[in-house]
């Protein structure tokens, strides 16, 4: 039995300190999944906290034969999917929200220009992700940020492996199309006898 399993068993017996160790260990992957799903630090913090609360409340249902990380990320992914669907029902647009929360480059940063480029890249990536359907987005985040296999994604999102393959395929196609539209067109090739000045 490894240290993590020992913490889980102790936490299942009601040891809150053991659960705190699990929170310490998994706060980053859970937060990252929530951030990539919801796109806002405050919403991600709230979702990550809620994930750990739900995990603590339903710890007795956790099957120790399964991976704890997969179980935890499954709670986080389902919670975020649910939130995104509710947002959609409330006619909430992430893009509109981003525009209203537009951040200026941090002047105190060591390299403000670099900071601005980094923020632009982050926003671009978020715009790409936010174009995807909630479950497709979760599959992409688990694949690229958590290095999950298709089987692990299927276990986490309660899908079949073939459904995960098809969702990843569809999501990559959508992301590629969006990337193509959002990046500038390459310069037209010069015709054989055309002057380089034109």
């Amino acid at each position, binding site marked *: 039995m490894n240290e993590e399993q020992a913490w889980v068993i102790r936490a299942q017996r009601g040891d*809150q300190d053991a659960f*705190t160790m699990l*929170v*310490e260990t998994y*706060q*980053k*992957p859970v*937060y*990252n999944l929530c*951030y*990539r799903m919801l796109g806002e*630090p405050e919403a*991600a*913090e709230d979702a*990550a*906290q809620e994930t*750990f*609360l739900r995990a*603590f409340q339903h710890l007795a249902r956790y099957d120790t034969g399964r991976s704890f990380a997969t179980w935890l990320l499954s709670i986080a992914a389902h919670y975020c999917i649910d939130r995104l669907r509710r947002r959609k029902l409330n006619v909430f647009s992430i893009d509109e929200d981003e525009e209203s929360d537009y951040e200026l480059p941090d002047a105190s940063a060591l390299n403000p220009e670099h900071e601005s480029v980094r923020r632009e*890249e*982050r926003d*671009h*990536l978020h715009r*790409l992700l936010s174009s995807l359907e909630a479950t497709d987005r979760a599959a*992409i985040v688990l*694949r*690229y*940020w958590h290095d999950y296999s298709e089987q692990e994604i299927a276990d986490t999102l309660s899908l079949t492996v073939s459904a995960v*393959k098809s969702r*990843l*395929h569809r999501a*990559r*196609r959508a*992301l*590629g*199309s*969006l*990337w*193509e539209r959002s*990046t500038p*067109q*390459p310069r037209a090739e010069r015709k054989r006898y055309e002057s380089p000045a034109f």
Partner: protein
Amino acid sequence: MNHRPFEDWLLDDKLLKPEEDRELQLHLQACRHCAALWEANLALRSAKSFAPAPGFTVRFQARLAAQRVRQRRSQVIGGLLLVLAGLGLVVWLTGPYLLEFFSSPAAWITTWVGALLGILEAMRALGEAGSVLFRVIPGLIPPFAWMVLISGSAGLGLLWSVSLWRFTRVTRGA
């Protein structure tokens, strides 16, 4: 080679052999669509992970404590409401009898004692009838009918036990 296999490799995120990778790189220079797929894949792969602000665990503990207080409060309120509802129901159901009791206790006691005696008398009569039947019926039923009755009961009992076992069995991996 045409466009299709390259697009499929990128969409399936296929692990490429060195010669396939070389072919793909050549194709990417000519095909903007596949180049976009490849760049989007690369952007996702190279994106960094985000970490929560320091003190996440402390904030979680505070949230857990607040939630416990909320749960305890709602349990207390729920319990109080349940007790009040139960008391209300008891008062509503017994109200007419209590009113009757307080208006004329002697008449009320006489009525209830009479009813109780009636019930006891009925029970005694039923018991006597049952014991007479118990003595008479076995003599009227032939032995083979007893055998059929007992076998039938045993069969039904077995069927019931098997059904219970089948329906309550936990299926692994379901």
